[in-house]
């Protein structure tokens, strides 16, 4: 057993972080917020060239030939950076929908009652969606356009759950960092607010939530087991939403502004929480397994 990142995995993670720091920095993020519904196609192709979509395709099929653990590391980075777009649907469509693998087309997929990026996407994977089957939703997340389906689609591949959990993990880690950084800088009562225990303990709980979710998400990526993925999704959803909330609290009034990035993390975390299988169905699944084991 060696449950730690390998050197190659670390390098992959680092490479993705650098790519996004260069191509999707804070300015790009804020610019995207001002252009709702439009995707940066050049960036999409660059992601394709970097192997983001073809990561798990066999090398013989022109892919990178890596597995779910590596994909999870990339989605974690995407979640950290709040990278917009139907990343998971396009990744899963690689090798199935032409052009998905190299990022030349944008693929989305219905997920339960919702579909993300319906208008911007070139293709919809899975069941066909006829015009008139969807209505636009005024999406709470400025970076995720949403449509509602009249007929909810079936719950997707467990990999949708796993990769969503990875994005949530990245977001939780990022809001924890943001809170810690702000707590070290902002001064009140003549001291950094991070020296106050009430603030410290919020930050400590954020780290604990994030690191526990990390262990669960990485393990689920390695085993691919449905119960592991369900547990990881629950913990990562909780980590992303709760950490964004605590990050907002640590930022005080600033946290309530459009200008601060905190709300973007919180809103995306809400969107991701709805993906794949509902929270209620996930807990029922785990409860059922407890009985089966016993």
């Amino acid at each position, binding site marked *: 057993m060696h449950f730690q990142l390998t050197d190659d995995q670390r390098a992959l993670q680092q490479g993705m972080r650098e790519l996004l720091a260069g191509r999707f920095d804070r300015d790009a993020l804020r610019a995207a917020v001002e252009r709702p519904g439009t995707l940066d196609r050049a960036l999409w192709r660059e992601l394709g060239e970097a192997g983001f979509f073809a990561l798990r395709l066999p090398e013989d099929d022109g892919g990178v030939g890596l597995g779910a653990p590596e994909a999870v590391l990339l989605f974690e980075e995407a979640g950290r950076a709040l990278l917009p777009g139907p990343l998971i649907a396009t990744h899963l469509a690689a090798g199935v929908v032409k052009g998905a693998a190299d990022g030349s087309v944008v693929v989305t997929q219905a997920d339960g009652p919702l579909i993300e990026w319906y208008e911007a996407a070139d293709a919809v994977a899975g069941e066909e969606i006829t015009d008139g089957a969807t209505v636009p939703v005024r999406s709470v997340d400025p970076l995720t356009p949403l449509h509602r389906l009249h007929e909810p689609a079936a719950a997707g591949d467990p990999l949708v759950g796993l990769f969503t959990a990875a994005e949530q993990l990245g977001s939780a880690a990022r809001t924890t960092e943001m809170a810690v950084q702000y707590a070290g800088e902002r001064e009140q009562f003549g001291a*950094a607010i991070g020296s*106050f225990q009430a603030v410290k303990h919020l*930050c400590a709980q954020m780290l604990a939530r994030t690191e*526990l979710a990390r262990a669960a998400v990485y393990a689920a990526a390695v085993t691919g087991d449905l119960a592991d993925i369900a547990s990881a999704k629950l*913990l990562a959803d909780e980590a992303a939403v709760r950490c964004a909330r605590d990050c907002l609290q640590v930022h005080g009034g600033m946290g309530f502004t459009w200008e601060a990035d905190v709300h973007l993390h919180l809103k995306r975390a809400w969107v991701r929480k709805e993906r794949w299988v509902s929270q209620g169905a996930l807990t029922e699944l785990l409860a059922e397994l*407890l009985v089966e084991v016993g």
Partner: protein
Amino acid sequence: MDLTYTEEEEAFRAKLREWLGQVLPTLPPKPDPNDWPGRRTYDMGWQRRLYEAGYAGLHWPVDAGGQGATPTQHLIFLEETERAGAPYVGANFVGLLHAGPTIAAEGTAQQKQQWLPPILRGDEVWCQGFSEPDAGSDLAALRTKAVRDGDEYVITGFKIWTSHAEVADWCELLVRTEPSAPKHRGISWLAMPMDAPGVTIRPLRTLAGSTEFAEMFLDEVRVPVANRVGEENDGWRVTMVTLSFERGTAFVGEVVACRRTLTALAGEARKNGRWDDPALRRKLALLSAEFAALWRLTQWNVSESEATGGVPGIGGSVFKLRYSHARQELYDTAAEVLGAGALDLDHEWVLDRLSSLSYTIAAGTSQIQQNIIAERILGLPKGR
């Protein structure tokens, strides 16, 4: 990231299982929780069997009398012994998990020779005399003083919450040897024989009804200077080197046990009809996710310490914080499953519920754990 065990690790597991299968049926019946001499005999008898089978001090270094096993083998050991229902370390906790490792890391060759083999063989019990009435979370404020008199220290003071004091042979004792130094710099670590004249033990009853810990009055107790581990006034560092051990693997077996308890809770709820309550099912499911993740975090931490050569990383404090809380939630949920049965002390889960209340206090309270995470891991400024 690899969660599969190597052939060697699986062979280790298989051999251990086989041995457990043979030895467990030969154990005497468990003693009553209030029968301390009986508990000592039982716990030490188990340690003796481990010793004879070559499992004592599994992960201790070979020069300390250990087996030099890898952290992963140690994890397998803890997992399998718990699965098989083997006894816990019990009275051997301090010897095996704190005093022993401290001596192994900081003691002289002679000290190791004197104290480690009896711990491994199950001959001697150790207790931990750190906390005092006015020095709990602020341990470094301790005042029990040791004054040098030739080649002896003369010790006077008052310790409290000393677990297993009634049956211990030795105490790892923190004393103040330099009253004028800053509080962390005037402390020394001593091995005190519990039968030394001037040591008085007064058992304290816990809220669970039994006497798990005691007050310890020290009145001019004489301890040889040769019993000091590490330099004089360097006792704080000596202690901290191994305090993280406590947080690292001390609860591994318990996580395995908690997962089994969850399954049993589901079974019981099915039987008594409470399973029909979706709120209860949801609680059990969330606990199942939590404990599954705690187990993965343990594997992560063990792999990390294997890679860094034993230095516990950030995982230890995170684990302690979440686990102690989760354990309390588990037994509160057990009480929901039991309904009126949760008021019956004869039910195992009710006693476990009571004892779970100490988890957010002992070995560093949850508040202190959060201070540690915030200041040492996240680097937030020290507060007042």
